[in-house]
C-alpha cells in the first residue's frame, strides 16, 4: 500500500512535469524572412544584387544629390545659395555634419553593404549565374569606392565584408582602396557577360565592358595609363558599343536600348505603380527653382564660353551647346518659359545659364513634380571611353593614334575633325585640347570632378573659372571632411587634415 502510494505520487509528478516543457523556446518569426534563413538560392542572390542596384537610385546618390554635389564641387558648376546646405560647394565648412555629405556617405556604404551581402553569400550558393551575379556586386562596390575616394580621399572606412552591429571598420591605408577596387574589377571582368550576351530585359545590368571601363578609370585616376589603355581598347574592339547618330538622344527618355550607354542608371518616368521610391531623378540644375525643379547648381561661365570657341562645319554653334545648356542663345523653352523670362531671375550676374542636359523638359512641362525625370542617367558613356582612350594613348606617347578617337566624337556632332582643325599637336597641347573636348562633350555628366583630380587641377587656381573656389584651401579642400556623425560613431576613423 505504501509503495503503491509512492508510485502514484511519482506517476502524477511525472505526468505534470510533462505538461510543463511543452512550449518551444526557439520560435520562427511568422511575419518575415530572417537573414539567417534567406540566401539559399541563385534567385535570392539575384534579388540581393537588385537591392544593390537599387542603392544607385537613393536620394543621396544618383536620384538626387550626387549630380548636384559633384558638379558643385568642380568648376563646371557653381552655386550662389548662402544656405548652409551648400557649404561644401563654397569650401566653407560650418559643420561637417552637412546633410548632403552625410547622406552621400551613408548611401554609398549602403550600396557597398548590399553588394557584400551578395558577394559573401555567393560562395555558399550553386547556380549557373552565381558567378556573374557576384561580379555585378563587385562592380558596384568598386563604383561606390571610386566616388567615395574622390570625395573624401583614401583614408575612409575600409569595408570589405558584411558588417554587423558590432563592426567598427578601420581607416583605409593609402592605396588600400585602389587595390581593393582593382582586385574586385579584375575578378568581375572574368565573370561578367558582354552587353550582347544579356537579353533586352536585362538591359541596365553590369556588363564586362562596364567593368573594364570602370577599371580603366580607376587606373587613370592613379595616372596608370599603361594599364588603362588595353582595357579601353578592348571595349572599343568588342563592337558592343557605338555612338548614337544624334548626341542629344542620350539625354531623353526613349524607352530603348542605348548602344552608346556602357553603364546606365535606369530611371523611369512616373515609375511602375508598385513602387514608391525614387525611380526618377531629382532635378537640381534649373536656372532657379520653378515648378518643382531645383536650382541647386548652375553651369559656370567657363562651360558656356567653352562652347563659343569653335563653330561646327556649317558655321553654326556647336550643336552640343543647345543640348547641354540653357543659354542666352537658346531658342527652346525651359519649363515652358523662354530665356528672356529666366534672364531676370538668375541669382547674380556671374550666372546666366542652366544645365539643359537631363532637364527632362518633355515631362516637366506637363508633370511638374519634384522627382519626375525618367531619363536614364548614363554613368559611363562610350564617348567618354573614346576620349579616355585618346588620353591614355597620348599619355603613353601615341598622340597621333589618339586623334582618330577624338574625331569620332567630334564628327558625330558635326565638328571638323581635330586632325584637320589642329593637326600634329604635341603631347601637352593634345592633352589641353582633350580637356576642352571633355568639357563640351561631357559637361553636366559628373565627369569633370574626376577629370580635375586626374589632371592635378583640383586646387584653388580654379577660381578663375568658378568663383566658389575662392575659399578653396590647397591641402585641405581637395577632400571633403568626413561627416562628424560618422567620426562620433566610429572611433577608428579620423578627420581629414585641416578640418
Amino acid at each position: 500500500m505504501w509503495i503503491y502510494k509512492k508510485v502514484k505520487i511519482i506517476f502524477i509528478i511525472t505526468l505534470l512535469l510533462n505538461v510543463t516543457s511543452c512550449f518551444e523556446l526557439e520560435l520562427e518569426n511568422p511575419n518575415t524572412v530572417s537573414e539567417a534563413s534567406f540566401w539559399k538560392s541563385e534567385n535570392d542572390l539575384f534579388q540581393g544584387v537588385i537591392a544593390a542596384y537599387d542603392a544607385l537610385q537613393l536620394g543621396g546618390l544618383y536620384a538626387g544629390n550626387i549630380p548636384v554635389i559633384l558638379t558643385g564641387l568642380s568648376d563646371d558648376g557653381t552655386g550662389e545659395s548662402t544656405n548652409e546646405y551648400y557649404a561644401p560647394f563654397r569650401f566653407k565648412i560650418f559643420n561637417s555634419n552637412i546633410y548632403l555629405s552625410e547622406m552621400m556617405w551613408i548611401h554609398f556604404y549602403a550600396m557597398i553593404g548590399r553588394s557584400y551581402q551578395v558577394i559573401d553569400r555567393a560562395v555558399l550558393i550553386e547556380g549557373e549565374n552565381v558567378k556573374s551575379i557576384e561580379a555585378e556586386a563587385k562592380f558596384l562596390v568598386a563604383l561606390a569606392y571610386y566616388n567615395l575616394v574622390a570625395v573624401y580621399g583614401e583614408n575612409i572606412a575600409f569595408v570589405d565584408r558584411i558588417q554587423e552591429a558590432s563592426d567598427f571598420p578601420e581607416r583605409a591605408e593609402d592605396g588600400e582602396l585602389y587595390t581593393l577596387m582593382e582586385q574586385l574589377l579584375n575578378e568581375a571582368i572574368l565573370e561578367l557577360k558582354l552587353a550582347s550576351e544579356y537579353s533586352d530585359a536585362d538591359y541596365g545590368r553590369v556588363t564586362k565592358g562596364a567593368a573594364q571601363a570602370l577599371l580603366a578609370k580607376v587606373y587613370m585616376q592613379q595616372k596608370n595609363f599603361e594599364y588603362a589603355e588595353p582595357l579601353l581598347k578592348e571595349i572599343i574592339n568588342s563592337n558592343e558599343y557605338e555612338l548614337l547618330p544624334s548626341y542629344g538622344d542620350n539625354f531623353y527618355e526613349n524607352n530603348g536600348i542605348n548602344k552608346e550607354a556602357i553603364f546606365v542608371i535606369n530611371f523611369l518616368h512616373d515609375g511602375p505603380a508598385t513602387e514608391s521610391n525614387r525611380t526618377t531623378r531629382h532635378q537640381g540644375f534649373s536656372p532657379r527653382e520653378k515648378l518643382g525643379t531645383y536650382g541647386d547648381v548652375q553651369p559656370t561661365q567657363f562651360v558656356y564660353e567653352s562652347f563659343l570657341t569653335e563653330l561646327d562645319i556649317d558655321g553654326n554653334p556647336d550643336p552640343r551647346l543647345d543640348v547641354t545648356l540653357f543659354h542666352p542663345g537658346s531658342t527652346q523653352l525651359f519649363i515652358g518659359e523662354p530665356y528672356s523670362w529666366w534672364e531676370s531671375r538668375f541669382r547674380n550676374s556671374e550666372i546666366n545659364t542652366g544645365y539643359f542636359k537631363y532637364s527632362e523638359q518633355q515631362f516637366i512641362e506637363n508633370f511638374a513634380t519634384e522627382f519626375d525625370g525618367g531619363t536614364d542617367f548614363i554613368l559611363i558613356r562610350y564617348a567618354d571611353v573614346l576620349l579616355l582612350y585618346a588620353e591614355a594613348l597620348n599619355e603613353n606617347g601615341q598622340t597621333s593614334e589618339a586623334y582618330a578617337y577624338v574625331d569620332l566624337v567630334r564628327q558625330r556632332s558635326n565638328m571638323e575633325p581635330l586632325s584637320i582643325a589642329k593637326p600634329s599637336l604635341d603631347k601637352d597641347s593634345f592633352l589641353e585640347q582633350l580637356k576642352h573636348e571633355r568639357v563640351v562633350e561631357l559637361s553636366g555628366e559628373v565627369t569633370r570632378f574626376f577629370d580635375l583630380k586626374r589632371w592635378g587641377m583640383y586646387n584653388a587656381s580654379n577660381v578663375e573659372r568658378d568663383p566658389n573656389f575662392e575659399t578653396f584651401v590647397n591641402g585641405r579642400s581637395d577632400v571633403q571632411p568626413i561627416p562628424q556623425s560618422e567620426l562620433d560613431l566610429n572611433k577608428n576613423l579620423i578627420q581629414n587634415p585641416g578640418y
Partner: protein
Amino acid sequence: MKNILLLVLNVSMFFNQAFSQRMISGKVTSADGNELPGVNVILKGTNSGTISDIVGDYTLNIPEEGGVLEFTYIGFQKKEIDIGSKSIINTSLNEDLTELQEIVVIGYGSQRKSDITGAVAIVDTDQLKKNYSSSITDQLQGRVAGVSVTTSGKPGSIGDIKIRGASFFGGNNPLYVIDGILTGDNPNLNPSDVASIQVLKDAAASAIYGSRAANGVIIITTKKGVKGAPKINFNSTVGMQKIPSRINLKDNYEWAEIVNAAHDNAGAPRVSGANEDFNENINTDWQNEIFDNTAFTYNTNLAISAGGDNSNVYFSVNKFSQEGVIKGPQFDRISTRLNSEFKLSKKITVGQHLTVGNSTTNGTAGAIDPDTDGDIISPFSAAFEMLPVIPIYDTAQMSGYGIGQIGKAQTWSENPLGVMDLYKNFSENSSFLGDIYVKYQIMKGLDFRLSIGLNGSFTNFKGYNEAGQIRMSTVHFSGLTESRNENFALFIENRISYEKSFGKHNFSLVGALTEQKGREKLLASTSVGGYDNETNFWQLSNSTGSISSSGSEMQSVIRSYLGRLNYNFDQKYFISMALRNDGSSKFAPENRWSIFPSASGGWALSQENFFNIQFIDNLKLRAGYGIVGNASLGDYEYTTNIYRTATGSDIYNPGVNYNLGPTSASVIGATRSDMLRNADISWEELRESNLGIDLEILNGQLFFTGDYYKGQVNKILAQVPLPGTVGAITRSSPSINAVSLQRKGWEAAISYRKQAGIFQYAITANVSHTANVITELNYGLTELVGTDISSKTTARLGYSVGKFYLLDYQGIYTAEDIAGLPSDFTVQGETPQVGDAKYKDTNGRNENGFLTGVPDGKISRDDDRIITGSPIPNLIYGFNIDLSYKIFDCSIFVQGISGRDVYNTYYSLMTTEDFGHFTNYPYDYDPYINGQGTDPRPHFFQGHGNNLESTKFLENGAYLRLKNFQIGANIPQKMMENLRVYVSGQNVLTFTNYKGLDPEFEGGSVFTPGLDPRAYPSVRTFMLGLDITF
C-alpha cells in the same frame, strides 16, 4: 508610559458610567493564558465601556440585564459575549492574523508579515476603496511609499505606475501577478474584487520573479468565499465630474495687440483679423466651449460570498460607466468574477479564479487621422491654440466650423468642436483572466500545486470621419480605420513546497517550474477617402477610396525554474534565499538563459533577551541583495530580417526594387532590413541592495517602516545609432545593452492608530525619494536622444535621464544691456534690441565650425543650451487620516510631490517655438511693446531669438492635492448586517504654483519626464454612495 495612557482612558470612561445599575467583572487573557492589559470592553451598541487593567482585570457598570459585551484589542480578534445574567465574564482573545501575524502573499507562496526580510509593502485595501476609480492601480496613488502613480481623468484610463522610478528606456511597468498569473499589462480588474495587494519593491524580494521583476512586482489576490451563510454585498455610487482648472488666456483685443506687434517687429504685414477685419463681437472662450461639460459616472457592484467546510465561492458582477468631461469618450465596463475552491479529500483541493469583462470606449479624445495615420490634435491642446477671434461656427467655411485663415487669423489648430463632431472612435475590449489549480498534500508539510492559467484580451477598434475642413488650409479626406488585436497567453506552473520546524528552526522551501506562452495577432485596415458624407455606412466594403491593410503575428515563450529557502531561528533571525533561471524566446539561444539570485536577512532585535526598551514592541532590521532582470524588447528582435518590399513607406524609406530592360519592368530586390539587430543582446539587469527597518511602538499603535536602497541598473537596452558603414540607408539604431545607471533612494511609511472607546482615528503617511544618474554609455554614445533643436531634454553621462537642455534665459535686454554688448554680438544671427530675450552665452564654435566650450559672443539655439533642472520629483508623499465617531466616519487623503521642475509646454507653445503667434496667449504674458512689458518683444519669425525654448518656461512642478475625502455613516438598523451611505470627493483642491492645466502628468517618455504633454487633466469628482451587506 503605558500606565499613564491607561489612566487617561480610565478617567475618560468614568464619565460614561452615570446610569450604572449593575456591575460586571472578569479577566481577559490571550489564548496561551497571558493576561492582557488595555483591552477595550464595551457594551455593544452603547457608549458604556472600560479598559482592562495591568493584570487583565476589568469591571464595568451596565444599565440592565442582557446585552452583549465586546472585547477589542489591537493585534487580537474582536470577541462578543452574551451577558445574560452573568456577573463574571472571563475570556481569552485569539491573536488577530490581520496584523503582524498576517499571512502575506510573496510570490510562489506566502509568509507571515513578521518574517518578511525584503522591502514588501502591504497595501491597506480598505483605504483604497475610498478612491473612486475604475482601476486598482489608480487607487494606489499616494498610498505606498516608493510607488508613484500618475492618473488622468480620461474615462477608462489606467494610471501610469512606477516602483522606485523609471530605470529602463522601454517599458517601466511593474510586473503584475494576479492570483499567480504574471502579466505586464495594467490589470483591468474590478477593484471591489481585490482582497489584498502586496508590492515587492526591492530586488531581494522580487527576485523570485527573476527576469521580469526589475520594475518591481505588484501581487494582487482576489477575494475568496468566506465560511458561513451567504453574504451579499451591494455597492453603488453615482458621481459628477468636471475639469477643475483653466489657464486664463487673452481676449480678442489683447490678442490683436500682441499679434500686430509681432508682425510689426518682424517687418511682416499684419494679419487682417487683428487689423482691418477685427471683429470686436467675436471673442470665443475655447476652454469654456470644450471644458464646460459635467460628466456623470456610475458604479454598481454586487458580490456574493459563501462557504462551507469543504468549499467556498465568491461571485461578483460590476458595471462601471464614466462619461467624458469633454464631449468625447465614454467608458463602460461590465465585469464578472467567479472564484471557488473545493476540498475533494483530506489531501486534494481544487479551485479556480476567473474574471470575464467587456469594456467599450466611445468617442474622441484626439482622434486618429487616417490621412496621416497619426493622432490629430487633442482638444486639450486645441483649446489654447485656437484664437479668440475665430468663431466656433463659421458658415463661410467648408464644414461650417471656424478655422484659422492665412493672412487673417492664423492658427494651425483643428477646431476642437469640429474634431469632436466629425471624428468618431469606438473601441471594445473583451478579456478573460483565470486559472484552475490542484493542490495535493503529499505528506504533512509537503505540498504540490499545479495551476494552468489563461489570459486573453481581444480589442476591436473602429475610427472614422467625414471629409471636411477643420483646420487652416487643410481639407481632410473621409476615412475609416479598423483594427483587431488578439492577445492570448497560457501559463503552466508546477510548484512543490515543504515546511518543517524542529526546535527553534523553521524552514520552508519552495521550488517551481513555470512556462508561459504568449501570442499576439494584429489586423488593421485603413481607407483613406472613399466615403460620401451623405451615405454614412461606415464599413470598409463601402469604401471607394484606397484601402491598405496590415497584419502581423507575434509569439513568445518564457520558461523558468525557481526555488526559494526561508529559514528563521526562534523568530529572531531570518534568512531568505531565492534563485530563478529564466529562458526567453526573445533572445538568441546563447544569451537566452539567465540566473537571478537573491538573498536577504532579518534580525528581530526586540526578541533578544538583552533588548529591554519598554515602549518598543517590535524592532526588526532587514538587509537584502538581489539581481533581477528586464527586457525592453519585442519578439524576434535578435534576428535581422530581410527587406524585400517594393513599396516603401515614404521616399526616405523606399522599397527595394530596380528597373531592368528598356521598358518599365521592375524587379523586386532583397536585402537585410535597415533595422539591424544585434544577436548579442541579453537581459537588462538591476543589482540592488536594500536596508530596512520595521519598528512598532506603543502597543502596536505606532508603526514605522523605512527602506534605503542603492542599485546599479546594467546592460540597459538603448537604441544605439550605428555608423553608416554598416550599410543601412537610414541610420540603423538597434537595441544594444549599452547603458548603465545608478539608482538610489529611500522610502518611509508611518501609521498611528488609536482607539479611544467609540472614537477612533488612524493616521498614515508615506514619503519616498528616488534618483538616478547615468554611469556608463557604451558604443560611442554621447547622449541618448538626438541633439536636434526641438529636443528640450537630454540624457548624458553623469546626469539623470531626461534633464532639461535649454537656453539659459536671463530676462529681457535693457538699453544699458544693449549699450554694454560688443558690436558684433548676435542672438540667432541678429543684433539684439531692447526688449529682446537675453540668454547666457555658454559655448561657441571655431572657424571650422567645431564647438569650443568657450562663449563666442553669439547666442545659438543649438549651441548655448545648458543642462539644467530636475524633472524627477525629489519627494513623493501621501498623507491619510481616518476618523470615526459612533456611526460616522471620515477620511481625508492628501497626496503630492515636491522638488520637481516642469517645462510649461502650454506657455512655451503659446509664446515661442515654431508655433509662436499662431496661438492665443496666456493672460499673464506681458511682452515688451511700446517700451512696456517684462516678456520678450513679440516677433513673428520662426527661429527668432525671442521664440526659443529656454529656462523661462521651467516652473516649480510641486503640488499638494486633496486627492480624496469621504464622509460616511453606518446606519443602525435591524434589516441587514450593514447599511452605509457616504459622500466623497476627489481632486477637490490642488495647491501648486504651476501655471499649466494640471501639475500631475506623466511626460511623453522616459526621456521627457518634465515636459507637460498637454493631455487629459485630472478631473474633480463628487459622489454619493450606498453600501449594503446582508
